[in-house]
């Protein structure tokens, strides 16, 4: 009894299984292997092979093979000019019956027809090539699989070991299978392309991010030298910027501030750049030896907003701008520009406020000599709770004491304060 009629529904089920597996499998190798094995077992053929298009190599490669003339996977290829590939690739589109499948018997029949040989030598050559290749591999039936108009794969089947011929129904089954395999191969290829494109995009994004980071770094360095420049204009004692930064970082550590992530970099940048806006203040105001008029004082105050504006391109340091905006706010809410109060002022800005003031007192300015350390400590203490956050003042003075102890002498004012 014919295998297909006897187990008709089994085959429909097989096709359904194949369709299901197609969706599930990311790599079609397993599915193709399963199909080859399935055909080999169910039909008992002398040879079963699956030939699949490798778009990168531009040829068709034998992927799976069963039977006595089994081909090792990946060893043998058909180039696109191979007569069998040519036969199924477009040239014969007009003759659909030829495109769908090809029996060796039909090839022989066509070759025996005299008019065929006379009509076209090249076609006869092609048929001879096909016949030879099929005989070489013990193949009786070729079934192509297409995706759109591209030949994606070829099912190559040998003769039945029991001597029977293939029925039309069986051939239809093979065609459906070949079609499904092509779909599976193309879907997997498409997925693979997507994965590769994704990887490429990710790589480019990383590159852009790296370049952006580098640019930010450069901008930051420029800003840093600009900040140094500002203070070079004012005859401060040497190295104000780095002094303020050191004192600020010491205070933050003394307070046990969380310095994880980029918190440390942000505080450091804010300490260094806090007065960068002074670059936009005219020299006659910035370096005026004597008291500023009301108007001059107002212009001087704009250095806060100017600084924040200059730092706009530093997108990695958004918080730095906010901190700089607030570094002249006072703890009691009487500072500028917004009159923020207490905890409304960020902790970094409160730190800058203390260390910058302290440093200003002990340094020489255009309008006066620097004053002794004792006096500076008294002033800072006096303004604790009004201008300054008392918690920050305490931490600052503790840090300062540790630092001075390293250098030798601790001023009596500091001892008094810390004892009280």
């Amino acid at each position, binding site marked *: 009894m014919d295998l297909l009629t006897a187990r008709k529904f089994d085959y429909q089920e097989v096709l359904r299984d194949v369709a299901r597996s197609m969706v599930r499998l990311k790599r079609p190798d397993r599915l193709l292997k399963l199909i080859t094995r399935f055909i080999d077992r169910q039909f008992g053929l002398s040879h079963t092979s699956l030939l699949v298009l490798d778009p990168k*190599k531009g*040829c068709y*490669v*034998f992927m799976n093979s069963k039977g006595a*003339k*089994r*081909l*090792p996977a*990946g*060893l*043998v*290829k*058909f*180039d696109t000019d*191979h007569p069998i590939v040519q036969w199924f690739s477009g040239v014969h589109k007009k003759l659909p019956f030829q495109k769908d499948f090809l029996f060796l018997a039909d090839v022989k029949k066509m070759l025996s027809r005299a008019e065929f040989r006379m009509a076209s030598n090249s076609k006869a050559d092609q048929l001879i090539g096909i016949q030879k*290749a099929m005989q*070489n591999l013990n193949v009786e039936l070729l079934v192509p699989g297409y995706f759109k108009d591209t030949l994606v794969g070829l099912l190559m089947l040998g003769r039945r070991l029991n001597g029977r011929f293939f029925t039309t129904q069986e051939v239809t089954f093979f065609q459906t299978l070949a079609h499904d395999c092509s779909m599976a191969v193309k879907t997997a290829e498409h997925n693979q392309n997507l994965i590769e494109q994704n990887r490429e995009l990710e790589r480019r994004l990383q590159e852009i991010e790296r370049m952006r980071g580098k640019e930010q770094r450069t901008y930051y360095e420029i800003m840093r030298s600009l900040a140094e420049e500002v203070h070079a204009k004012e005859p401060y004692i040497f190295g104000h910027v780095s002094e303020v930064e050191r004192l600020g970082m010491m205070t933050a550590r003394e307070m046990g501030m969380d310095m994880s992530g980029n918190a440390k970099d942000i505080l450091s940048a804010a300490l260094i750049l806090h007065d960068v806006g002074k670059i936009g203040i005219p020299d006659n105001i910035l370096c005026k030896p004597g008291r500023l008029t009301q108007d001059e004082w107002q212009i001087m105050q704009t250095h806060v907003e100017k600084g924040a504006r200059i730092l706009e391109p530093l997108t990695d340091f958004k918080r730095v701008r906010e901190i700089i905006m607030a570094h002249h706010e006072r703890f009691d809410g009487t500072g500028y520009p917004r009159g923020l109060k207490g905890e409304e002022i960020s902790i970094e800005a409160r730190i800058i406020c203390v260390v910058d003031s302290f440093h200003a007192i002990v340094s020489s300015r255009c309008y006066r000599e620097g004053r002794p350390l004792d006096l500076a400590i008294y002033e800072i203490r006096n303004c604790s709770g009004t201008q300054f956050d008392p918690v920050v003042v305490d931490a600052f003075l503790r840090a300062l004491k540790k630092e001075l102890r390293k250098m030798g002498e601790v001023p009596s004012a500091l001892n008094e304060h810390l004892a009280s």
Partner: protein
Amino acid sequence: MTNKLLIVDDEAEICEFLKSFFEDRDFKVATAHDGAAALDQVERFKPEVVLLDIQMPGMDGLQTLKKMKETHPHVKVIMVTAVETQEKIEEAMRLGADNYITKPLSLEYLEKDVQDKIDLLAKGL
């Protein structure tokens, strides 16, 4: 006279397939799975043409080729390689290989190439 072909590949499946392919074309075929066995077969089997895989564990194709050409300069050697590494191919040609073929290979081309080498030998080249 039957032509003799030696197939050298560490993969037995490949040897068996090519053996049966060339036996169908009336070749006498011997196989070897490594370089040492290949040199031994060249001595005993005396093939006209050798198909020699480049990538083999132990003595690789290039070393085997060198020794083979030293003792049997007239044997025609076609190198078979999975990846087309230009340096290895150049090295093989420098060592006296008569041609090379890359996997996946075209059987039609392989058959023609082996036949060409036999024809060359027949002409005493």
